[in-house]
């Protein structure tokens, strides 16, 4: 039988990042979700991690044997959805 979760499963749909890629960077020692975000771009697409954030945190916990509350939460940086640069430029006050 296939493994329960396959390395080919897409974790971050916005940036096309697979579970295998996430596991690979965790094995290389990147166990802070903020680092994982910056290296793989998971969570940096249009939805800003609404799907992958929890999955990545769970995966870090599983591989490192830590509790979920011990895993640091990556920054929720505004804007929470894409905004055209032109709109930002217009809004001056």
């Amino acid at each position, binding site marked *: 039988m296939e493994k329960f*979760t396959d390395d080919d499963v897409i974790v971050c*749909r916005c940036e096309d990042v697979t579970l295998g890629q996430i596991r690979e960077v965790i094995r290389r020692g990147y166990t802070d979700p903020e680092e994982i975000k910056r290296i793989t771009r998971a969570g940096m697409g249009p939805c800003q991690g609404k*799907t992958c954030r929890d*999955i990545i945190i769970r995966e870090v916990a599983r591989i490192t044997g830590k509790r979920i*509350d011990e895993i640091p939460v990556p920054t929720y940086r*505004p*804007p*929470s959805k894409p905004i055209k640069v032109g709109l930002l430029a217009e809004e001056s*006050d």
Partner: protein
Amino acid sequence: MRKTEVLVVGGGPAGLSAAIAAASMGAKVLLVDDGLKLGGQLVKQTHKFFGSHRQSAGVRGIKIAGMLLSDIEKLKDKIEVVSNTTATGYYQDDGVVTAMTGEDVYMKIKSERVIIATGASERMLTFPNNDLPGVYGAGAVQTLMNVYGIVPGDRVLMVGAGNIGLIVSYQLMQANVEVATVVEAMPYIGGYLVHASKIRRLGVPIYTSHTILEVYGKDAVEAAAIVKLDSKWQPIPSTKRILNVDTVCLSVGLSPLIELLWQAGCKMKYVPQLGGNVVLRDKYMRTSRRDIFVAGDVAGIEEATSAMLEGKLAGLIAASDLGYAYDGWEADREDTLSSLEELRRGPLSEKIRSGLKEVVVEW
């Protein structure tokens, strides 16, 4: 820059109740909501609510939305509603909230008090082919059917036997869609027995200690495999079964949408009973930032009835901070508080009560 006294982010049961309460006190309210229509999840809830009659038990969710909206309408000289608008950020240095209407209007909002009632998002599971068309969140299916009148497919595998999974299964059947099976990874059914019995009577099996293993298909879902889990949550290979389904519905929990609270620097804690990271708050829903309140699922995954009561509390206190009041509002506040306690008294609320113990503080 738009200025207001009370900004409410989110127009679901919590946000609407908060806006109504704050405006009833006399405060000027701006309500922003990302939907095209107000009401949040209520507008797709065609089932009747439970609980006490004072909290609209026996009334369908969509009717409750209607009741709240008529209250909003009555207070329209106090409440300005901006729909199709997403709050995109909170900036701590000047306490400004940014928001975007559609994709073409961007605004900054400065408010004396902010009530965050952003709700929650659906959780995802990792299994092969989970990105094939035909794999949905249960909430998305409910929206598709009950708001837009579109059925997702012909035969569905429902993953998760909490209340949402059970209710959406029943609503699929009401829409003439076959539900092949409901699987639940826990060894027991999480939702109310009355919902489970309803779909079982219609011949749909609910398998506990079972989960989805993978989905098959080329361009869309053609089949799905389910498997039994052992006591250590590991799949038992010999129990794998293939179901001919064209739709998979995931109802595996909700995650509070805490971005704005996080950006505002509100103190948080990871409380799995409440769905993940949630903010610390006092019993009146005030966060560690004196000017910011929370209400509803963003404060901890619960249900619409508690969300409305929390919203009312937040709205009353936020307006009272600004010097507003109406005759008897304090009695109303205490009454709301005791309704909330009463609602959470039952054995089914044990998980909520244990979660709240960790986050309800005194400032």
